[in-house]
């Protein structure tokens, strides 16, 4: 019989048995989000993939984009729980559970995307019966399976002491099936010295193993593209580019999920701001590396102007993919700015006292007014009004400066609202990274060699199935965190023991 701090019991275990209105509303909302996609998928199964906008040569579309994206975001679990575990970083402890769950659910939905993308999902088992180990897709399936199993194992190992705690501290009114589940899953864990010693050993081994498995999955996923002879999928840059993108978007989603859990599961006392601060440094480094890779690719392909590659890059820079490319760049710049600028501010908190939100509002409004004035002022012919032109130029300059000032003035607000800022930046990064995957796949497939260039606009089927996948992802989290606590009870206890000074 293991006991638990009564405060923790009230904050972390008891909510698992309370089904309040928020929970039911969330559940119904999620089902409403998921249902149309399921219906559209059944329709796609019945009619065939023709209901999508996939054509020749756009054989791969939004499902593959989602697949790469989800594989990417699942990286967070490996990074946080394994790398930080091995480095013995203490601030990882409250979020290991969320990170590992993120990996497992991300991989599950990614696998689902592949099934959805297949022309013959009924033959998915052929990959096991007739699988050719020389085929890149088989490497990916193998890697995905190994990674998913390892991630589930890692999540379970990390859950084990908590399941035992749940079993021992189950409230009287709990339904019998939950008692049964907990006692079954706890594997007779009693928390004696030998059990702990073995668990720690296995967790360390799994942490070591999962890192190469994770990195291999992201690299192999890039090989799906670079093993073909299509233009724009350079073999050497794509592997590391995918790994970096995976870590980048993974941390982004981790921030978002942690922020939601922190808010809706009332974990403010458990997940400290220190975590946001520390992890955002890794986030900033990843964004720098991401810019480095993207710059490399854009510069080389643009400078070399090779017959096949260049049309792909040109489509991204100023062609039909320019919106998605430049929105991606703008989002990444904005996210990096959001994360970096507050860090600079800390050096001189007194000096920049002008930078207040109301200054931002004031300068934004002034810029808007000036913009209206400039737009409303009668257009003068160029010959007559040289002076007016310079005034116009100065006005535009002032508008730009005012906008810059308004952005800069928000920095203090960003600094004081770390969670909100990180949440906004993460959302920007996630959208940007999804667009990045879009920009990797779609421009290449629409620029085939012997097939006329074409465009690809996802149909309603593809959009709803994508929304549905996101809904299922959230649903898995909601259900999982109704069954198990969102923060690791035993690691929090461990944290307290190793750091007696810190309060909870």
């Amino acid at each position, binding site marked *: 019989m293991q006991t638990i701090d009564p405060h923790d019991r009230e904050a972390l275990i008891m909510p698992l048995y309370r089904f309040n209105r928020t929970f039911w509303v969330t559940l119904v909302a999620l089902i409403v989000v998921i249902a149309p996609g399921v219906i559209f998928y059944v329709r796609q199964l019945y009619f*065939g993939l*023709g209901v999508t906008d996939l054509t020749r040569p756009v054989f*791969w579309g939004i499902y593959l984009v989602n697949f790469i994206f989800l594989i990417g975001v699942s990286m967070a679990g490996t990074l946080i729980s394994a790398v930080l575990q091995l480095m013995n970083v203490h601030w990882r402890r409250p979020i290991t559970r969320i990170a590992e769950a993120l990996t497992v659910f991300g991989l599950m939905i990614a696998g689902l995307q592949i099934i959805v993308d297949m*022309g*013959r999902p009924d033959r998915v088992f052929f990959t096991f019966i007739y699988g050719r180990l020389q085929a890149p897709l088989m490497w990916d399936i193998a890697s995905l399976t190994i990674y998913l199993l390892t991630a589930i194992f890692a999540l379970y190992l990390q859950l084990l002491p908590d399941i035992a705690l749940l079993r021992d501290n189950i409230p009287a009114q709990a339904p019998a099936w939950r008692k049964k589940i907990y006692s079954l899953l706890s594997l007779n864990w009693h928390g004696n010295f030998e059990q702990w010693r073995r668990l720690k050993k296995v967790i360390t081994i799994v942490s070591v193993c999962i890192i190469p498995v994770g990195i291999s999955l992201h690299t192999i996923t890039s090989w799906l593209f670079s093993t073909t002879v299509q233009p724009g999928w350079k073999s050497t840059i794509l592997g590391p580019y995918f790994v970096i993108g995976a870590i980048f978007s993974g941390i982004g989603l981790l921030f978002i999920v942690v922020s939601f859990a922190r808010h809706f599961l009332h974990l403010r006392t458990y997940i400290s701001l220190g975590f946001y601060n520390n992890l955002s440094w890794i986030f900033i480094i990843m964004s720098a590396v991401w810019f480095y890779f993207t710059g490399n690719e854009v510069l080389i392909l643009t400078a070399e102007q090779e017959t096949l590659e260049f049309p792909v890059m040109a489509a991204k820079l100023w062609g039909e993919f320019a919106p998605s490319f430049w929105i991606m760049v703008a989002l990444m710049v904005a996210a990096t700015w959001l994360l970096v600028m507050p860090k600079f501010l800390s050096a001189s908190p007194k000096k920049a006292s002008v930078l207040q939100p109301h200054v931002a509002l004031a300068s934004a409004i002034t810029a808007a007014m000036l913009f209206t004035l400039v737009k409303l002022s009668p257009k003068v012919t160029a010959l007559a009004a040289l002076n007016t032109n310079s005034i116009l130029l100065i006005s535009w300059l002032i508008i730009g400066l005012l906008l810059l000032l308004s952005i800069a003035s928000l920095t203090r607000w960003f600094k004081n609202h770390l969670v909100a800022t990180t949440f906004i930046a993460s959302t920007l990064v996630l959208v940007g990274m999804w667009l990045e995957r879009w920009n990797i796949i779609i421009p290449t497939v629409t620029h085939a060699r*012997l097939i006329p*260039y074409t465009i690809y606009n996802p149909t309603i089927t593809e959009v709803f199935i994508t929304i549905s996948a996101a809904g299922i992802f959230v649903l898995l989290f909601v259900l999982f965190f109704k069954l198990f606590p969102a923060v690791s009870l035993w690691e929090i206890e461990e944290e307290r023991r190793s750091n007696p000074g810190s309060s909870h």
Partner: protein
Amino acid sequence: MARWSMVIDLEKCVACQGCSIACRFENNTPVVSPDEAKNGRAIRWNDVFPVPVNPTEKTGEYPNVKTRYTTRPCMQCENPPCVKVCPVQATYKDDQGLIRQDYNRCIGCRFCTMGCPYGVRYFNWFKPEWQETLSEYRNPDQLKMNGSLEGPAVRPVGVVEKCTYCVHRLFKAKARAEAESRDFRASDYVPACVQTCTGKARFFGDLDDPNSIVSQLAKSPRAFRMLEDTGAEPKTIYLQEG
């Protein structure tokens, strides 16, 4: 063992698309609606199209233009990029160098369609359909053995299909030679597009036989292979115009 090859003399080709139609009826490729065809869903194992396909080469402005046409069956590559990426060996190179496709094995992942630089592989986005009269004239031939389904057999939805140099004709020719108790000759086997070619621009034969017509033509200074830079080493050989 033979190494089947096709030589297409572009000088003789009049771009009549007879090969495309002959292929359609020989191999039961379904007809799609004009809307779907515009959307890139048309299936033509043997396609005839103007080159350059995309504006990577200057073709000039009217009236000073240069127009060329090419016809494209499967290249039956020696080093096929499609076969290398198939996860379940639904597409494979047989012992005579033909790249074949098993409709009962294909899982519809469309990796081969991405792998092929020539775009000769087609996907069945919908269940193949024929309008009433057309459906009565489907070719009954098919290759079916050990659970595999190939050749002109009507394809199920969601699988990839491609030109096979009319591989069922090879099997039929061998069976006939056996029935007539004589040796099989390379000239017994000829794909539908070669048989029908208006300008007699297509030649078919065994590349391993140094005296065959294809071996002779392959030595021509006009001979070239499409997209040689991809390293696929096609066995469909072209003879340049002019």
